[in-house]
């Protein structure tokens, strides 16, 4: 089933509200490029997008819902120390620098996610050079979110 030109693989008919999606209301080159090439799917709570240490396969655009970023210790303890929300792209840094994921990403509440595979992402970067500045912008957002998370963990008392 296809909606608005997007490839949809889920057997569930997806009603992504593009009006409320951050990616749809902004007009940056990366957002329109990713919107045109993503595979949309509804992910139920508890399903894992990727595991810590796994090689990146692509980026996930969150249209709605939340995703827990879970870190684990050598002894098997695991804890959700951060979360990603609508408007964020998960896995961007790992795909950009082709490094294993730092955390396990598990859906916290039912989420509408768009997936763009790694090869397509890099191809888009080559064919749409303007996208590179948007990658900078998104990475900057991600870095700032990490600092906020560190502040919350270390200084919240």
């Amino acid at each position, binding site marked *: 089933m296809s909606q608005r030109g997007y490839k949809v693989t889920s057997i569930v008919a997806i009603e992504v509200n593009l009006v409320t999606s951050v990616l749809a209301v902004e007009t940056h080159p990366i957002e329109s490029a990713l919107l045109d090439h993503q595979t949309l799917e509804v992910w139920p709570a508890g399903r894992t997008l990727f595991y810590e240490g796994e090689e990146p396969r692509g980026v996930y655009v969150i249209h709605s819902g939340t995703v827990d970023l879970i*870190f*684990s*210790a*050598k*002894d098997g*303890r695991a*804890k959700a*120390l*951060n979360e990603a929300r609508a408007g964020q792209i998960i896995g961007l*840094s790992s795909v*950009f*620098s082709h*490094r294993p994921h*730092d*955390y396990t990403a598990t859906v916290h509440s039912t989420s509408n996610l768009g997936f763009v595979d790694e090869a397509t992402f890099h191809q888009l970067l080559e064919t749409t*050079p303007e996208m*590179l*500045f948007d*990658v*900078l*912008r998104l*990475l*900057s*957002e*991600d*870095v*700032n979110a*990490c*600092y*906020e*998370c*560190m*502040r919350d*963990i*270390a*200084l*919240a*008392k």
Partner: protein
Amino acid sequence: MPTPYNLAIHNTCSDCTVRESHTFCNMARPTLTAMDSVKFTSVYPKGSVLFVEGEAPRGVFVVCSGRVKLTTSSSEGRTLIVRVAGPGEVLGASGAILGRPYELSAETIEPTQLNFIGRDDFLRLLNAHPEACMHTAEQLSEKYHSAQREIRSLGLSQTTGEKLARLILDWCAREGDETPRGIRLQVLLTHEEIAQMIGTTRETVTRILSDWRRKEMIDIKGSNLFVRAHQKLSDMVTV
């Protein structure tokens, strides 16, 4: 010719002899020439504040030599040292790119040479030179992964001793020198600053270091810290 603080001053990026070892600066000559035309080089003494958390972004600082501590504070005034930046790092990039206040404060912890590029010039450089854009993205990506490692350590370490052991092991891996007395680290941070790197108090850091010294796991001579029992420290780390 004598230079301030005996630093090897690099006046132009295009002729810099150490740029090949620096992630951001290792760019083609046209990009470096463009950077030379917009940057201002200065040498700062220890303790100079470059920018403050919450301040409007004026531009970016590229570290040529020396070290800078990056901190964030809680509303109660507690401070966390997020990391210590070294040569080749660009400071303040996310604020400058997003046009939002700096997320961190930056202060030199030793005499440091920095190149300052104003925000408008930096954005023009990024737009005109994709290579500068790519190198900045690589730096941001590296900072992201490094921040995730810190989040893991802060959130999953079970004891303060474990956090301190991991910090010291990180230093060993990055800048430790093998000596007959153990792995030598030059620690320019005070116990208070070490405490701020792992979210604890100065007293706790002093107590743990004294304990490790008594057990001959480490030795301290001036600003040099010798790690004598690397394996024991490794065994303490669970994250």
